[in-house]
């Protein structure tokens, strides 16, 4: 299993450069498999996902009034294409305020696998996918954002740019509550952590549970 640093060393500078991003302004972190030692069975099952590496890149200083932007980097280091469930369907974003209280993202639609419908499910995420790009420099792949499955081309890195602009409007101590009222993200220092399960859709039950460390960001 490769690391985010390896991916960045190959691809991320290229992306940043292409997007005129200053590397020192980003915080990067690898999404590591959660406690892989506790799930040894997955190693043997995970060949198909062995070449998939995840990382996150967050601007230290977010743009004022535009919420929180971050980039989820999915790299397929395998020489084969890999079809997996849409990572954005299962992405979990945990944001803590300066005091460490969790902030809830607005209520969206649940992941499609949980919806019992015979029709195409209405899908509304708690965050916005701003763009999807890859290292092949293909045209924006945003049209694939709501697809149920996502094909990672061989030796290709995908960049999912995400923006979080609102939180649920609840008292932070009442973190168990659910509110459809939202509020814009205010200035402040936040911590962001991503949890991203990826899994194949071939019924093989091959998956990986990955998470990042908390990343501190500041919104001025």
């Amino acid at each position: 299993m490769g690391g985010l640093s390896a991916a960045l060393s190959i691809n991320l500078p290229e992306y940043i450069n292409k997007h005129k991003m200053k590397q020192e302004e980003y915080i990067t972190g690898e999404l590591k498999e959660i406690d892989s030692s506790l799930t040894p069975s997955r190693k043997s099952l995970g060949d198909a996902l062995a070449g998939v590496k995840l990382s996150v890149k967050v601007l230290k200083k977010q743009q004022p009034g535009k919420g929180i932007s971050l980039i989820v980097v999915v790299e397929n280091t395998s020489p084969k294409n890999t079809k997996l469930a849409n990572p954005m369907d299962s992405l979990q974003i945990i944001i803590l305020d300066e005091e460490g209280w969790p902030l809830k993202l607005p209520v969206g639609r649940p992941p499609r696998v949980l919806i019992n419908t015979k029709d195409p499910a209405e899908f509304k995420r708690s965050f916005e996918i701003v763009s999807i790009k890859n290292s092949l420099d293909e045209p924006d792949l945003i049209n694939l954002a709501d697809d149920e499955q996502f094909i990672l081309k061989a030796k290709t890195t995908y960049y999912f740019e995400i923006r979080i602009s609102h939180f649920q409007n609840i008292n932070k101590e009442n973190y168990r509550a659910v509110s459809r009222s939202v509020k814009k993200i205010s200035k402040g220092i936040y911590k962001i952590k991503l949890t991203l399960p990826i899994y194949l859709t071939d019924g093989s039950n091959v998956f990986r549970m990955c998470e990042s460390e908390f990343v501190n960001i500041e919104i001025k």
Partner: protein
Amino acid sequence: MKRSQIIREQKLYLSYLPHVREMYGKIPGVVLIGLGAKEKAGKSLNKWAFRFYVNKKLSLQEIPEEQQIPGRIFGVQTDVVAGFEKESLICSATNFAVNDEGYRDEGIRGGVSIRNEFFDNDHPSGYGTLGILGRRKSDNALIGLTCSHVANAAADSVTAVNAKIGQPKYWISCCCCPRGYIGDIRKATSNSDLDCAIIEIHDDIREKVTSNSTENRIEGIIGNIGGADAVVCFETLQKYGRATGLTTGKVTDVAFGTNQMLIERTGGNPGDPFACHGDSGAVIVNSGNKVVGLLVAGQRSNLARAIVTHIKPVMVELGITIAGTDAATIGDPVGGGAIGCELFAWPGGQADPALNPAEIFASTDFGLAGSVNWDVSGGAPGAVIVETGTQTANGMPAISVRYGTVSPSKSPNHAVWVKASDGTKDVTKFRTVFMFVGRTVNTSSLVESSNTKRFAATGGTGNTQAGVSLPGTDGATWFLAKAETVYDIGPQDIDWSGSGGISFETGTPAGIKGNIVARRETRFTRGEQQNGAPNRTHTDQVDWISAGGSTDDEFQGPDNAAPSEIFRLANEGFDPSNLLQGYLRAEFRDFLEFHNGTGWTRITPFAEWFANLTGDLSGTGNPPPAVGAVNNIDVGVNAEKIPNQSPVITLTDFQEVKPGENVTLNATPTDPDNDVLTVRWAQTAGPAVALSSSTGNPVSFTAPANDPQLKFTATADDGTGVLSRTQGNHLSNVAETIVNVIEWLDRQGGNTRLCINNEELFNAASFGIGPGPLNWDVTTGGTAAVIVEADGVSTAPSGTFNGATTILVNYNNVSADATRANSVKIEATSPGDGKKWYKRRTVTAIAFAVTTASVPGAVPSNAMGATVWGLTFPENVTATICAYRNGLNWQAALLTATGNFSLQARLLAGVTEVTGPGGNTLITNYCPQMNNLNSLNGPTWYMISAVTAHENVHATRFLPALNDPTVIGVLRTAIDGLTVPHAAGMNQALAIAALTALPAFAAALTAAQANWLARILILVAGDHAAGGPTDTAEHGIVDPMVTAICAHSRANGWAACPPLCP
């Protein structure tokens, strides 16, 4: 010397006389012992002496020592008078006559000549003297007093009566007329004591006596006779007789024989007789003109000395009065006549009054009758009348006297006087109080020159040291114990010679009053251990065995070497053949018994002695000691009994048990003598427990509750309690063992998150070592624990805490095993006195896993879209925690995690629930119903339960998802890492409140929810696959309904509905 003094001493010395005669009267050559005047150079002095009359005087060299007459007896001088031979004083032819006148016409009287009818007129002999006239008491007849040998001179018998008596002689005239007749003999007595007779005076003569008033006259003596009286020694007397007329003399012996006295002439020329032939029958008159005696004889070789019978026994014998005096009025002593010998010594003087036998006196023993007055205060002190406890008592016919003080000597002055008085007569007896003091002869005494007085290994018949024969043949080795008890007598001047005194019986006691017998009682303790025998055997003779009377061999009277000692011997032994070890203790107690006339009574304390003998013979290969050699045997009165070595007992010092446990106490007793040992147990501390037995080994009991400390002692007894030479060494040391009954329970713990572990509160009261704060330590056992709370206040976990009344112990370590050594020891120490107590716990690993649950019912956060049949969604995760001190902080530990999910199911708008046959299934719709159901998606007919079944498939993924380490593991890590600082007064509840209020706690739960959802997404990914789990679940619901509808349609003859119901 005054007359009164003479009279007192005469009475005293006359009382000694019987005993002097008893003691010395049997000395060869001694004819008579009297009391009277000491003679010196042929002259009688006015000094008292016991007069020993012998036929011939011998020099001291000629007399054996034991036959020598002491110079003094009872403090009175002695005198030896030789060559005394009596001669009756009937007138012989050669004798002269001072007065042979006839007095018949002028009144006969005393002192005149008489002669009986057996003589011719002219015969020159046969004369005597009429002593005095008197009255016969029986008929007041006038009688004349003379000697029997006078009255019956020449008669066939001197005691014959009725012979005629004449004055101055009886004779027949030529005309055959009797002449001189005055009367007839009416009574005549002649024996060794008396020689007297009375003549009944004829009436004619009596008339002359009366008319001439001569009844109380004696010729030649001035004045009338005034009566009769007892004689007083050294007194000057007079008599008037036919031969010598009026002569004077002095009493030189008031106890010459039984009833006689001896008078020696005074005045006149030397050699002049006091009386001579023809004077017999004359009476002796004292200076008071009272008759004191009847002249009966004189000394053949010296007629200046005359033998006179005391008048009192004469008057008693003849039954007469003289000058109106009755014999009964004449006091004692009358003449020293013996009244029977009696013991003059009696045992007494012992400190223990019981050893002083009482002597019984009756008034009759004193010649008195009936009740008399008694006095034992005279003479030496210490006598007590038993009946009254005093020294005087009145009006008692008999008394018992106990003598409390031994007489310093046999002197009469050191004797006890026992006096009886009837008011007119005093009679005194004298008792020298003697006492024996025993002493045991030990090895140093040389009572026998041939006896070493040692225990000795003696051989066979060669041993004759003790005068006893030993069993075994010559050369056999036996051990002999031998010792003597010697009795010293006090006073030491009591004589032992054969002349009289105390009589000691030897051999079989005769049981005569005054006898003394020596006795010995014995008991033996013998112990032997033969070679090869495991134990020593005892023969313990507990009771004293009384010996019979002492034998001649055993009891020896005093001899010249030890004149005041008696002694006896004893022996005992055992055969050491094949003897490994052996011992013998012979105990003896010797004593003397005295026969008080009724029975034997002990008069000495027990003279106790013993002999110990030990042998260590064939077992060691050492030969027996040689004959006569001093060996390892001791003799004495102060040594111990048997040789014995104390047993030894050991106990385990300490043991710890649980309440209710059966506890065994096991001692290890040993004994160097191989004695059979008895182990005795005693509980000395703690609540009483019921030992299985107070003796024996081992013993057991059931440990009580409540953690007491019990103490027990064990002692071994080798059974030689009364035998051991060293008092008390039959017992071993006292060994003590302590049994701590310690609460010992099982607990669970070992988790580093302390609040997971069992915790337990301990308080001082449950430790019973004193109220108030204690010092606690939970680290001294094999497994340590920590104290997390003291007196209700949280503390940083620590192994010790001082000064708390209560503590809360957290078992944070697991015992390696269930042994006591690896238990947790909760130990408390009282700071005041250092007392400790403790309890134990065995800690096993506590089984802990975070409890998880997936619980439906949460409020849905997502509304279902218009085309959504159902939605099951993990809404949130809740958790419970505990908290524990970790240094200065409280740290959280996750206890439970609950995944709360919402489950929504519905029929879409326009879809009707199929209720089946009997419901809404009709001939008109049954086929669409079946087809809609089978297609699982309506669009008209469906079943809500099928939708729910679909959602339940998802729900079944939720708990496994929650339990996935990626969920619960991450959550636990996050929760368990939470801490809050400890603050004063903070306890676990407050700590939990603080911890769950942390943003991080909320963040952890939020993350858990996210992770849970992520994991669910993976698990449910395949649920919706065609023919997958949700389809199967829905078919599980709808298929039976389809089947039922089909069956119903067929039953009702409805048309087929292919392919579901062809």
